[in-house]
C-alpha cells in the first residue's frame, strides 16, 4: 500500500517528466498504428483492384478422344459426372470449391415480353471464378443451392428485353421453359453478344433438367504458388481424369484443362512485394519507436541518479529502489501505451471513414481504406511497453549498483 502511494506520488509530483515519457510512448505507438493502417489500406486497395485475379481458378471442359485406349475407339466424347465432382472435392487436396455447370437454352418471358436466354446452373463460388459483377440484388447463395430455390440472376441484356426502365425486376417472376423463377439479382453482361444470360442454383437446374453429366467444371485451388506447381498439378489432374474416364493420359484433346494461374501468380507477386514493403516500413517504425522510448526512459533514469544516491544514503535497499523505478515505468508505459493505441485506432478508423466518403462514387484507380489488424496492434503495443520497461530497468540497475556517493555526486 505504502509502496503504491510512493509510486503514485513520484509520478504525480513529476508531472512534466511523467508526461514527456508518456507522450513519447503514446506518440510512438500512435504513429506505428496509423502507418500500419495506411499500409493495410494500400494493400486492400491493391487487393480490390486485382480481385478478379486474386483467386487461382481452374476450368476443365470435356473434349473428344484422339487416341484409342483400352478397347475404346477415337472420337469418343468425354462428359463429367457427379463422380468427378466428388473426386475433385474429396480426393484432390489442392481443390477448394467446385462449381459444375449445367446449362439450358430457351426463352424467358415476363408478361408479354420475351427474350432468348442461356441459363447456367452454378454454385455460389462461380461468381468469384467468373468474376461476375453484380449491378443490383445478390448472387446465388449457399442456402439457395442447398434448398434448390427457384431463384434467378439475370444479366443486363435480358433485363432490358424483359423489363421497362421503371419496373424493378427484383422480386418479379420470369418464366423460363415453363418454370417460374424469382429474380434475386442483376449482373453485368459479358461479352459483346446481346443474348440474355441467367444463373440459377446448380441443384435447381439439375433437378429440372435431370441431367447428370456436365460439359464443364470450374473450381478454385489453394497453395499452388509457382508455375511449376501449377504445371505438375495439371499433369496430375489429367492422369487422374484419364484413369476415371479411361482415356490415354497423353491424349490432350480428351479433356481441356485451363487455369487463370498467370494472372493469379502475377497478382500474388505484386501483393507479396507490397506486403514485404509494408512490413519493412512497419518494422522500421517499430524500431524507431523502441529507440525513442528507450532513450527517454534512459534519460529519465539518469536524471534520477542523484535521487537514487540520496535514497541509498538514507538506507534504501537497491531492490526497493529498483522495484519502484520499474513499477513507475511499467505504469507510465502501460497507461500511455494504451492511450496511444486507442488514439491510433481511432485515427485509423476516422481516416478510413473520411477516405471512403471521399472516394465514394468516384472512379478512383485505387481505393485506400485504412484498416488495422488488432493482433498486430496489440503485439506492437506490448513490444513497445516491454522495451520501454527494459530500457528503464537497465540504467536503473546500473544507477543502483554504483556507490551511493557516486550516485549522489552524479551530474
Amino acid at each position: 500500500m505504502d509502496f503504491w502511494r510512493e509510486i503514485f506520488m513520484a509520478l504525480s509530483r513529476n508531472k512534466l517528466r511523467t508526461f514527456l515519457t508518456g507522450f513519447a510512448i503514446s506518440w510512438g505507438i500512435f504513429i506505428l498504428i496509423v502507418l500500419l493502417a495506411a499500409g493495410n489500406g494500400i494493400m486492400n486497395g491493391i487487393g480490390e483492384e486485382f480481385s478478379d485475379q486474386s483467386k487461382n481458378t481452374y476450368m476443365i471442359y470435356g473434349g473428344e478422344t484422339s487416341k484409342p485406349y483400352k478397347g475404346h475407339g477415337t472420337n469418343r466424347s468425354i462428359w463429367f459426372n457427379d463422380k468427378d465432382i466428388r473426386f475433385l472435392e474429396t480426393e484432390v487436396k489442392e481443390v477448394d470449391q467446385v462449381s459444375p455447370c449445367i446449362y439450358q437454352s430457351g426463352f424467358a418471358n415476363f408478361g408479354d415480353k420475351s427474350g432468348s436466354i442461356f441459363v447456367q446452373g452454378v454454385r455460389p463460388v462461380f461468381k468469384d471464378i467468373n468474376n461476375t459483377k453484380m449491378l443490383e440484388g445478390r448472387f446465388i447463395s449457399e442456402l439457395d443451392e442447398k434448398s434448390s430455390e427457384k431463384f434467378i440472376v439475370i444479366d443486363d441484356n435480358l433485363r432490358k428485353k424483359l423489363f421497362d426502365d421503371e419496373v424493378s425486376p427484383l422480386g418479379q417472376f420470369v418464366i423460363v421453359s415453363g418454370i417460374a423463377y424469382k429474380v434475386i439479382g442483376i449482373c453485368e453482361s459479358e461479352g459483346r453478344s446481346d443474348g440474355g444470360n441467367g444463373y440459377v442454383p446448380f441443384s435447381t437446374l439439375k433437378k429440372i433438367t435431370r441431367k447428370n453429366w456436365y460439359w464443364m467444371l470450374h473450381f478454385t485451388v489453394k497453395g499452388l504458388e509457382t508455375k511449376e506447381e501449377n504445371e505438375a498439378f495439371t499433369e496430375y489432374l489429367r492422369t487422374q481424369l484419364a484413369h476415371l474416364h479411361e482415356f490415354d493420359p497423353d491424349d490432350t484433346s480428351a479433356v481441356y484443362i485451363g487455369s487463370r494461374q498467370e494472372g493469379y501468380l502475377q497478382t500474388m507477386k505484386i501483393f507479396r512485394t507490397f506486403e514485404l514493403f509494408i512490413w519493412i516500413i512497419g518494422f522500421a517504425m517499430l524500431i524507431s519507436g523502441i529507440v525513442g522510448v528507450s532513450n527517454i526512459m534512459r534519460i529519465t533514469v539518469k536524471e534520477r541518479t542523484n535521487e537514487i544516491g540520496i535514497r541509498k544514503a538514507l538506507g534504501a535497499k537497491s531492490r526497493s529502489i529498483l522495484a519502484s523505478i520499474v513499477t513507475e515505468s511499467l505504469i507510465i508505459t502501460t497507461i500511455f501505451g494504451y492511450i496511444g493505441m486507442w488514439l491510433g485506432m481511432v485515427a485509423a478508423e476516422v481516416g478510413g471513414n473520411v477516405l471512403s466518403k471521399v472516394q465514394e462514387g468516384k472512379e478512383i484507380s485505387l481505393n485506400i481504406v485504412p484498416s488495422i489488424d488488432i493482433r498486430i496492434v496489440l503485439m506492437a503495443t506490448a513490444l513497445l511497453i516491454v522495451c520501454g520497461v527494459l530500457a528503464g530497468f537497465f540504467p536503473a540497475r546500473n544507477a543502483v549498483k554504483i556507490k551511493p556517493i557516486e550516485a549522489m555526486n552524479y551530474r
Partner: protein
Amino acid sequence: MIRLEKINKTYFGAQPLHVLKGIDLQVNEGEMVSIMGASGSGKSTMLNILGILDNYDSGNYYLNGKLVKDLSENEAADVRNRTIGFIFQSFNLIPFKTAMENVALPLYYQNVNRKKRNQIAMEYLERFGLKEWADHYPNELSGGQKQRVSMARALVTQPKVILADEPTGALDSKTSAEVMQILREVHETGITMVIVTHERGIALRTDKIIHLKDGIIENIEINNPDSIDFSKEIK
C-alpha cells in the same frame, strides 16, 4: 564509537590518487569532532568512508564496535539507515517531496507506517521551528531552512552518529551560527558527531579538531567549546 585503523584509500582515475594514507582515528561515543584541512586533503573521502557511502582499500573501520568491511549492499543500507545520519553541504533533499516527506523518508525504509512516520517527522520539524513549512517543497525554502530540514531528516531515525560534510558551507555566517547552535544541542543529547569544515569558527565549536594534510592526520587539537559564546556570529 568510531575507530579507524590504517585506512587507505586510492582513487583509480586516469592517474591513481592515494588520498588516505593510513588513517588511525578514534572518536568516542558522544564526542563531537571536526575535520579540517586544505581542499583535496581527503576530508570528504574520509567522511564518505565513515558513512559507508564509499569503500576503503585496506585497514579496518569499526563502527559501534562492529567491523565495517565488505558489507553486502543490504547490510550497508541497514547500517546507514539505523546508525548514521547525514548532513550535506548541498542538503540533498529530494525536490519533489515536501519538507515533511523528506524528513519521513528514512522511516519509510524502516517500514514505519505512514501515519506514524509523518507524526514523527512533524515532531522533528517542530523542534527545528519548521512546523509551518512542513508542506513546502525544498525550492520554496531558504538555505538555512533546507539545512534544518536535512538535519531533521538526519535525526529522525535517532542515529548513533551524525556525519556532516561542510554543513554550513552554503550558508551565511548568521545562519551558520544557528545551524551550529542546533548541532551543539543535538550533541548534548549524546549523539556522536563528525563535522567536516573549512571554517575555524565552526571547528572551534567542536571538542576536537582533526587536522588532515595530504591524506594523513597531521595533529589533533583539543578545544574547550564551552568557553565560546554560541550566540555570536562565526565569521
